[in-house]
């Protein structure tokens, strides 16, 4: 009986000993703990030099945790839209946020020359009341 009790004690003593070990194990991979956080801004942002793309490889743990983010491409380059006109509200509307703000390139993936023309067109459209300066809330 006493032996059994002793055993139980030892096992119970072992359990807490094992317990710290258990959290220790996740904490080691959790050293990239800031990574998901770091990815946060990267998430909408997409590519940054040496950004989210490079990090998983450096940690040597790719596999299941790595989620695939499609590389953003410029809509105007891909669909070969040549003219960005202020009259084309439906096209411009895709690059205007809910409140009427112009969506930055880092979110939409539009290339620099096209974004330049896009902003000009959106501003013209705003002037002729095709697009809002600020959406009414």
């Amino acid at each position, binding site marked *: 009986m006493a032996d059994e009790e002793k055993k139980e004690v030892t096992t119970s003593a072992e359990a807490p000993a094992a317990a710290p070990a258990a959290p220790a194990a996740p904490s080691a991979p959790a050293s990239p703990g800031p990574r998901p956080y770091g990815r946060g801004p990267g998430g909408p942002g997409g590519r940054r030099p040496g950004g989210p793309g490079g990090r998983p490889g450096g940690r040597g743990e790719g596999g299941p945790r790595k989620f695939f983010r499609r590389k953003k491409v410029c809509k105007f380059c891909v669909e070969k839209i040549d003219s960005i006109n202020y009259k084309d509200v439906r096209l411009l509307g895709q690059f205007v946020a809910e409140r009427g703000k112009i969506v930055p390139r880092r979110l939409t993936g539009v290339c620099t020359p096209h974004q330049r023309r896009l902003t000009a067109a959106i501003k013209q459209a705003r002037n*002729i009341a*095709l697009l809002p300066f600020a959406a009414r809330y």
Partner: protein
Amino acid sequence: MPVQQRTYEVMYIVRPDLPEEETDRVISTVESNATTAGITVKNVERMGKRRLAYKVRKFQDGLYVLLTVEGPGSALAELERRLRVTEPVIKYISVRIDEEQKRLAKVKKIRDSKVRQRPQTAAGSEPAPATA
């Protein structure tokens, strides 16, 4: 140096609460204003009634009209002045489009030449597998 002839697009909004014949008159007066200012009107397009993105002179919608015109900048300035004076016109914008048209023509030309090249190479490569 002669006066530069440039192509512009003038879009203006006519107030929506006018009767049909009244709006017709406004549109034709704008057109005649343009010609007297020394501008040739190439095209007039009514884009119909549209909801405005924000209130303009307390109007929630407006009648959009698009003019394609050609003429010197000074004449366009005169047309703009008259548009500003014309009471039923609640908003206008004039955009120079000749440069853009030139650019588009250039892009199209490049693209066409590329397209023409590609079918040739495709036609050249196609028979080879067919014979094999």
